[in-house]
């Protein structure tokens, strides 16, 4: 086939045609809404009231809104505690699953279960687990005499926070484990065999071979998990409803509560802060991956 210019340009036109439906959907239902939210954040936009340009007022109000400050602090703390916990647990599970095991297929299937179920359902399950009088958590704690009396998990700030972290880890650790397992199985066995010949012990092999070679995959997992943890909504909506007293309200829940009350300007401003944070953090993580590994294209 002769690749003259005419042929090439026709092919490019076909390619653009093939991209068009995808691009159209993404522009209309993601890009335009994001830009719309950005625009709304500069307006007073409340249902049944005339829309009015406010400049940066929404953001100025956010900066001095203690409720928003608390939502921001909670969200960052949630990311800082839950993401490392999930990635470390996921790495341990991946290391275990990477060994020769009986019923390996069954174990992998079990790991998929928490990942596959809706976050709302896991919220409901943990709501029952932490229930003061019926819940499994208090039953275990009191029968094993770990606590003298039942713990009011969802009624205290620290209890609700820990409950959320535990429930979130249950739901999302499997995803980290699955991706990390794929990364582990891509590491050539020869490296480990050679290391054994050189009498490197398990710990040395982990830090000298596994961890450096797994780093790109670790960064991808950290990136995905951070982005998802920043937007945490479903689990909190069901498990704590943002309480007690607003202590576990995430930025997503904060924004949603304004949208559902018909205040689109202020809710949009809070959402804009969240997507700037998500964008900044992902950029930072990608840069970390590129600078140290030269890996990301």
């Amino acid at each position, binding site marked *: 086939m002769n690749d003259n210019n005419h042929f090439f340009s026709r092919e490019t036109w076909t390619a653009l045609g093939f991209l068009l439906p995808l691009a159209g959907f993404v522009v209309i239902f*993601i890009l335009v809404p994001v830009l719309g939210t950005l625009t709304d954040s500069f307006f007073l936009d409340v249902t049944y009231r005339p829309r009015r340009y406010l400049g940066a007022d929404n953001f100025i109000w956010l900066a001095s809104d203690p409720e928003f400050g608390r939502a921001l602090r909670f969200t960052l703390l949630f990311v800082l505690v839950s993401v490392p916990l999930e990635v470390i647990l996921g790495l341990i599970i991946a290391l275990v699953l990477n060994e020769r095991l009986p019923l390996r297929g069954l174990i992998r299937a079990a790991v998929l279960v928490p990942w596959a179920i809706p976050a709302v359902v896991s919220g409901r399950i943990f709501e029952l687990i932490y229930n003061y009088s019926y819940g499994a958590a208090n039953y275990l704690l009191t029968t094993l005499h770990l606590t003298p009396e039942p713990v009011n998990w969802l009624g205290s700030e620290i209890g609700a926070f820990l409950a959320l972290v535990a429930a979130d880890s249950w739901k999302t650790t499997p995803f980290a484990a699955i991706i990390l397992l794929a990364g582990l199985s891509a590491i050539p066995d020869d490296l480990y065999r050679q290391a054994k010949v050189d009498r490197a012990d398990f710990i040395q092999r982990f830090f000298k071979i596994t961890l450096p070679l797994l780093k790109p995959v670790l960064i991808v997992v950290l990136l995905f998990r951070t982005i998802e943890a920043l937007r945490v909504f479903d689990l909190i909506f069901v498990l704590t409803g943002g309480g007690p007293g607003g202590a576990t309200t995430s930025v997503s829940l904060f924004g949603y509560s304004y949208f559902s009350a018909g205040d689109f300007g202020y809710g949009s401003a809070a959402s804009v802060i969240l997507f700037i944070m998500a964008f900044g953090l992902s950029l930072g993580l990608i840069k970390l991956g590129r600078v140290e590994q030269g890996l990301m294209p």
Partner: protein
Amino acid sequence: MNEDAVKRPIILAAAAVTILFCLAPFGYMVLTGFSRYPDFFSPDTPWIVTLSNYRTVMASESLHFTAFLRNSIIISAASAVISVFFASLAAYAITRLSLPGKLFFMFLILSLSMFPPVSLVGYLFKLMTALGWINTYPALILPYVAWTLPLSLWILVSYFSQIPRDLDRAGLVDGCSRMQILIKIIFPLAAPGIFATLLLAFIFAFNEFLFALLLTTDHAARTIPVGIALFEGLHGQIPWGEIMAAATLATMPVVVLALIFQRRIIQGLTRGAVKE
């Protein structure tokens, strides 16, 4: 070897703990759904197995549970099919046609999926209200298609790029159009990958909550996650047995799919994240 003798029991114990960690809360949900009393494990409470929770959830008119389930399945299936079809068109163009800036395009699409859903949902609500589509299937299907497209695109690109390009050339020589090549040659060869992508897109749409919460108002379009989240029962006290029965039913479609097609799902999920 000595090291293995130490390591082996630890590995097996860790595997057992992993299974327990993953399945215990799930099993707790299933058992509670079949129990008369939610604290069935306590010695003070008799454990009475019952189907009445399921009967209430399935039969009660006012709970609308079967309507939620039907809405969820239709909306998720439609979103997955549309998303995977459009993503495979784009993946075909990216993997086998001459096109400048492919990589840039791929990353642009990926970066769009980094926006938190809450930063879209307010505007989508106003858009759907203006169109009069609130509480209809399109109000959810259209955003779900867009929302699953980046994921579908990335997975399909990795599958399509493994199919030899000679096949396309042979197709062109035989006078096939690009669309015919995609449908007659690529689709059959990439069937496992397309199927994995369909499953993932279905599961993502099925589990989505925030859009469904704000863009639907009642059982005409409300999906299962919203139904479960807002389930307060018909009487005063929280009906844990009924909630867990409903949760079990809601979970079944995705869990069954995940277990049957475990290998494909794991393969699909790890494409793109891990370079081979």
